[in-house]
């Protein structure tokens, strides 16, 4: 029944191959449909069991049927066989099915090469440092498998194979570097990633309803990182503006379409301002966070400063973006806002929240100026028992009334929303600003990490003669939020991940983030712009992609040329190598007082060394015998050289614990 070919299965190697395939497929299970993951696992398991029980591989017709079923399954699932999702699914299935017809080394090689290709597909989903390290490890395993399968009689020990493949990978580093630096980058992503890559990102949206920001506060994913050119501004000044909302429908606040700022801004104290660079994580929106108030001249090309002082760019931020800006805390626009904007900032729904309106009237009539009114409102938040919490109760139709007078428990959006409403009801133009506040300073990397959890909402009121003034009602309720960050402002027990009490863990988190940041900046962020500036700084001038391709070919060509010269050179240094290794052996013995006289033959020396160190006699004997055979014998074998160097490098004459007084 069983053809001799079917029994071809060097089992330990096959098991290694199955395990490595499982490792390379594993990260994909996060986005593959369940049936596909289960099927793949089943095939891997079946193949293992078949090899174990010496069961013949399935017949051709069964394989064909399986392959057709697999392709049909993929088509049913995705309606196509092209594109990222369907492609990966198909590749995964076919690669595992190929296992069922492995008859010789050639088939194995095919699978291993498919496996190498599979490594690449992970980068279509995830380009983090972690996945890169993981895939490097798997690539190492695959290379070791290639080595192992190319020598069926397993002349090499496993350790030596792992070592050799690590060496091979290391040897490929120069080519990798040349390709990395010189491969022409195109502007925009290299491949057209489907839009769903970044859709899962959380972030601010263009509307704000109660509970939306408190939900964001549960996410510790990074929004952006900021490097300051000078000193880190105090926490109370680190307001990063993203959106301004001035339309209230009774429940949620919405932003309007933005218009570019037309009137010039005035800097009151003419200071140098704060210069900083932001690395923004992709969020699929056109907004660029900036500190208040940004100098339009410092903004990157392609972005614009809007009339509400927010900054947007034309395209959506689909890739990590790095930009610099300068902000002046004292920059004002006393006259720039047009009447339209101001009247909008007073708009309220016709009905609803009667108690708040009454309160506004009462406070307004009791205060002489607008500023007085603002302070009275803030004083109410401060003096009355309001609670800052991530878990506010649900609010009904008259949400402002309910919050201000009944529940009195809320997150920043509740305070900003009710304060703005109060202002408008009292006749003071006011609006909501959303963005991020303070962030966490990473001393290790000297930058600020701003997470989604740092999302914040505050108010701006229009004061005649002063223009828009930032008022943060949350500061009146929970000053800690502004001064020490969100983790310290919340009651104990809320938002657990934010409270990382152990400084040790904090340090670890910072180190990891620093690493990750460098990876993002220097590896993933190496785009066309950086490539051009990198080579310009090296003195190459501005390189076109044709120049880059030429240098690329030259670089790779010279590496291979050098390798060719090195490998094709007559191998006279085997002898020198043996000599050097033997010298090391003599040195190790010399360290324990058994020095070899230059005129002493190796066998005599071995004899002397053995009588002085009987504990090492077998090792000394073996090494000396190999040396004599290699240096003086006829018909030496290359493996002896390896064996010899292996033994000598492991040879230690020093006793692990000497009994010395």
């Amino acid at each position, binding site marked *: 029944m069983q053809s001799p070919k079917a029994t071809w299965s060097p089992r330990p190697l096959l098991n290694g191959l199955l395990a490595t395939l499982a490792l390379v497929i594993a990260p994909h299970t996060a986005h593959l449909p369940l049936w596909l993951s289960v099927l793949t696992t089943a095939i891997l398991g079946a193949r293992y069991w078949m090899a174990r029980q010496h069961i013949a591989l399935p017949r051709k017709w069964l394989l064909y049927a399986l392959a057709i079923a697999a392709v049909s399954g993929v088509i049913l699932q995705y309606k196509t066989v092209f594109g990222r999702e369907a492609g990966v699914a198909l590749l995964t299935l076919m690669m595992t099915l190929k296992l069922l017809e492995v008859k010789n080394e050639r088939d194995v090689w095919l699978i291993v090469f498919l496996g190498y290709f599979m490594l690449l597909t992970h980068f279509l989903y995830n380009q983090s440092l972690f996945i890169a390290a993981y895939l490097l490890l798997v690539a190492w395993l695959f290379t070791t498998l290639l080595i192992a399968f190319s020598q069926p009689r397993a002349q090499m020990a496993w350790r030596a194979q792992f070592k050799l493949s690590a060496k091979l990978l290391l040897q490929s580093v120069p080519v990798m570097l040349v390709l990395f630096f010189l491969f022409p980058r195109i502007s925009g992503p290299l491949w057209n990633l489907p839009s769903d890559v970044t859709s899962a990102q959380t972030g601010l949206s263009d509307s704000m309803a109660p509970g939306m920001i408190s939900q964001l506060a549960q996410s510790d994913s990074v929004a952006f990182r900021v490097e300051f050119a000078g000193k880190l501004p105090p926490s109370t000044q680190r307001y990063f503006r993203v959106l301004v909302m001035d339309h209230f429908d009774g429940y949620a606040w919405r932003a309007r379409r933005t218009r570019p700022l037309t009137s010039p801004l005035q800097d009151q104290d003419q200071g140098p301002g704060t210069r900083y660079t932001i690395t923004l994580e992709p969020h699929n929106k056109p907004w660029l966070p900036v500190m208040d108030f940004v100098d339009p001249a410092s903004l990157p090309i392609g972005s614009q400063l809007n009339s509400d002082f927010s900054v947007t760019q034309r395209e959506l931020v689909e890739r990590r973006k790095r930009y610099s800006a300068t902000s002046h805390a004292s920059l004002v626009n006393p006259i720039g806002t047009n009447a339209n904007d101001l009247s909008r900032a007073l708009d309220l729904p016709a009905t609803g929240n009667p108690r708040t309106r009454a309160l506004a009237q009462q406070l307004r009539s009791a205060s002489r100026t607008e500023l007085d009114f603002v302070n009275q409102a803030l004083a109410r938040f401060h003096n009355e028992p309001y609670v800052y919490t991530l878990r506010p109760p649900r609010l009904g139709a008259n949400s402002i009334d309910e919050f201000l007078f009944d529940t009195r428990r809320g997150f920043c959006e509740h305070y900003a929303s009710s304060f703005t409403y109060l202002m408008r009801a009292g006749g003071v133009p006011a609006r909501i600003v959303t963005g991020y506040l303070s962030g966490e300073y990473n001393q290790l990397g000297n930058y600020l990490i701003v997470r989604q959890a740092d999302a914040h909402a505050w108010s701006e009121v229009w004061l005649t003669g002063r223009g828009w003034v930032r008022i943060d009602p949350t500061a009146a309720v929970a000053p800690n939020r502004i001064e020490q960050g969100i983790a310290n402002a919340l009651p104990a027990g809320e938002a657990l991940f934010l409270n990382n009490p152990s400084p040790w863990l904090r340090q670890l988190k910072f180190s990891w983030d620093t690493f990750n940041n460098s990876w993002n900046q220097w590896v993933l962020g190496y785009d066309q712009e950086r490539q051009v500036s990198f080579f310009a700084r090296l003195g190459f001038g501005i390189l076109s992609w044709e120049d880059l391709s030429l240098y690329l070919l030259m670089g790779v060509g010279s590496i291979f040329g050098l390798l060719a010269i090195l490998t094709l050179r007559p191998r006279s240094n085997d002898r020198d190598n043996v000599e050097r290794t033997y010298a090391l052996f003599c040195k190790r013995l010399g360290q324990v007082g058994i020095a070899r006289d230059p*005129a002493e033959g190796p*066998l005599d020396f071995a004899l002397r060394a053995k009588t002085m160190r009987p504990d090492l006699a077998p090792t000394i004997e073996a090494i000396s015998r190999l040396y004599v055979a290699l240096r003086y014998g006829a018909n030496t074998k290359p493996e002896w050289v390896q064996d010899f160097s292996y033994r000598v490098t492991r040879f230690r004459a020093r006793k692990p614990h000497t009994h010395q007084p």
Partner: protein
Amino acid sequence: MNAHLDPLAEKLQQTVQQAAQIILGKEHQIRLAITCLLARGHLLIEDLPGMGKTTLAHLLAQILGLQFHRIQFTSDLLPADLLGVSVYDRERNGFVFHPGPIFSQVILADEINRATPKAQSALLEAMEEHQVTAEGETRKLPEPFFVIATQNPSHQVGTFPLPESQLDRFLLRIELGYPERQAERALLTGQDRRDMLAQLSPLLDTAGLAALQAEVSGIHLSDALVDYVQALIAATRQSARFSLGLSPRGGISLIRSAQAWALLHGRRSVVPEDIQAVFVAVAGHRLRPVSGNESGSAAAQALIGSVAIP
């Protein structure tokens, strides 16, 4: 190391062991003597009378199953006494050659430096050519042909010291020296050596010996080893210690002896230790130290210690 020795080489080991039981405490010299025989060379033993030279020669012949003849050299020895003479045979009505004692496989030429140069040269010619010419006719000597010549230290009265050119004909020169205390005690109290000799049975035959001799030149010489030999030769020529360095023939002798030594020790290739083991015996009589007080052997021994193995 002994595991893969062929039977012949194993016999060699037994030979050495047996010989060492007769000549006590002189194993190195016994090995050198056998090495010399394997390398198809001739041996010169230089020592005072009564050190066991004759016993050694006899022993070798006995163990190796060779035919043995001893010739005592005296100042009145004539070449014909060695080579043989033609005597008129009346029955055959012609001269019949009566071969001299030299027609033998192992010859002990005792006290070679007592004979006149003429007699010496007759022997030396035979050693070199493995044939003798007497009365116009060339005759082959038996194979193997192995001469062990003994020589009293030349400062003794009534000797004709061998000139350098003649000494060069001997592959090895050894000195037996006084036995060690323990060995001598055994010698003094033990059985008569001659009786023991007579009881020995040969371990090898002519064919076996010839096969072993043929193997010597097949012992591997690596580049590294030749480097070492050349370093040694260069040292003898450059050193201020010697007035005469080692000749190319001396170098060849060194390699040949080392090969035979390696074979005797069951190795298929020569190692530096082999060279060192035979160096004094090969070079001692070929080198002439500048200082009159130093013997060639001592100087050669010192040289080995000063030349690094490359």
